[in-house]
């Protein structure tokens, strides 16, 4: 699947959900597809995208949180999957754009292009809901589930390698404050 199309498919279904995006491609793609106040973009701290999403989900159990992580980053912090599975916040979903490469640094291969399955690791970590959509129709159905049903969900989405188009907005503090104000303004 194409990551840009997959991001658009999610973006058009979003209403009042928080989306946390992983540094590099997921952040740039979401900025380009649908920049919105309830997006929290990460630009560094590789591996922590879904940790941040877990903290938001536990602090605001009334809000649905979707983490758009990457295979290279998640491989750096696999232990997090055990924390999420055992904390089991029903309002959290981890979606991994798995392109099997470190795209942002030049496309060097990751373990998921070899013998490693993040979906299988999520099952082993204790996730009850692990989805592996194989085409856009299944992906659309998966997004409908994570936006409407109790999780936590783990969604492995195999996407084609290649950089996202466009220029990344890098005003970290402005994005942070915009996000905090929008989330605080969302009524409990």
């Amino acid at each position, binding site marked *: 699947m194409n990551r840009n199309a997959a991001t658009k498919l999610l973006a058009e279904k979003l209403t009042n959900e928080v989306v946390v995006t992983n540094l590099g491609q997921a952040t740039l793609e979401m900025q380009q597809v649908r920049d919105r106040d309830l997006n929290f973009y990460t*630009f560094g701290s590789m591996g922590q995208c879904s*940790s*941040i999403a877990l*903290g938001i989900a*536990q*602090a*605001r159990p009334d809000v649905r949180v979707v983490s758009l992580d990457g295979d290279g980053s998640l491989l750096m912090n696999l232990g997090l999957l055990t*924390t999420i599975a055992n904390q089991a916040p029903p309002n959290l979903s981890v979606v991994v754009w798995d392109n099997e490469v470190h795209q942002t640094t030049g496309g060097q291969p990751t373990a998921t292009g070899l013998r490693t399955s993040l979906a299988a690791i999520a099952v082993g970590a204790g996730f009850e809901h692990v989805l592996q959509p194989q085409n856009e129709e299944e992906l659309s159905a998966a997004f409908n589930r994570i936006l409407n049903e109790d999780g936590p969900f783990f969604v492995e989405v195999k996407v084609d390698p290649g950089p996202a188009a466009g220029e990344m907005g890098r005003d970290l503090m402005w994005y942070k404050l915009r996000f905090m104000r929008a989330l605080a303004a969302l009524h409990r």
Partner: protein
Amino acid sequence: MTTEGWHLAIADALRRNDIRYFATVPDFIISQVLHHLWEDETCHVVTSSREEEGLGMLSGAYLAGKRGALLMQNSGLGNCVNTLASLNIALQIPVVMVISHRGDVGEYNAAQVPMGQAAERILEACDVRYVTPHTVEEFEAEADGLIKLAYTRNLPVAFLLPNDLTGGRYSK
């Protein structure tokens, strides 16, 4: 000058400053603080697989309006450095770190010593304001002020707990 009840003093200082969300990778020393938090129904303590992960979680909670503290050993400070710098400091996301200090005077495990000796310089290299209270009185004199500073400036702060406060951990 007393050290008795140091662990309750720390738990109480965190709680009276409205901190109810905690991440930890426990050790023998810090567990004495954790016991007070574990048995408090108003506190949520998450044991993360790695300290850096706890920092990510607490940062997310702060963005959503909740204060948090990370309880760990100084070895965990080493595991935190990149996230501390690129998330908490770069984006001004406050967090209170409570760090047991292994690898200093009285240490029996040689593997602990290099990180123990580096701990203060790691905090200084990251410009993290920290205190090293040696008694409960010293802790009480600085605790509220240090936590307040974290949320005034929106930056991480640390309590680095020396052995003479905590009793440390000695080999039998």
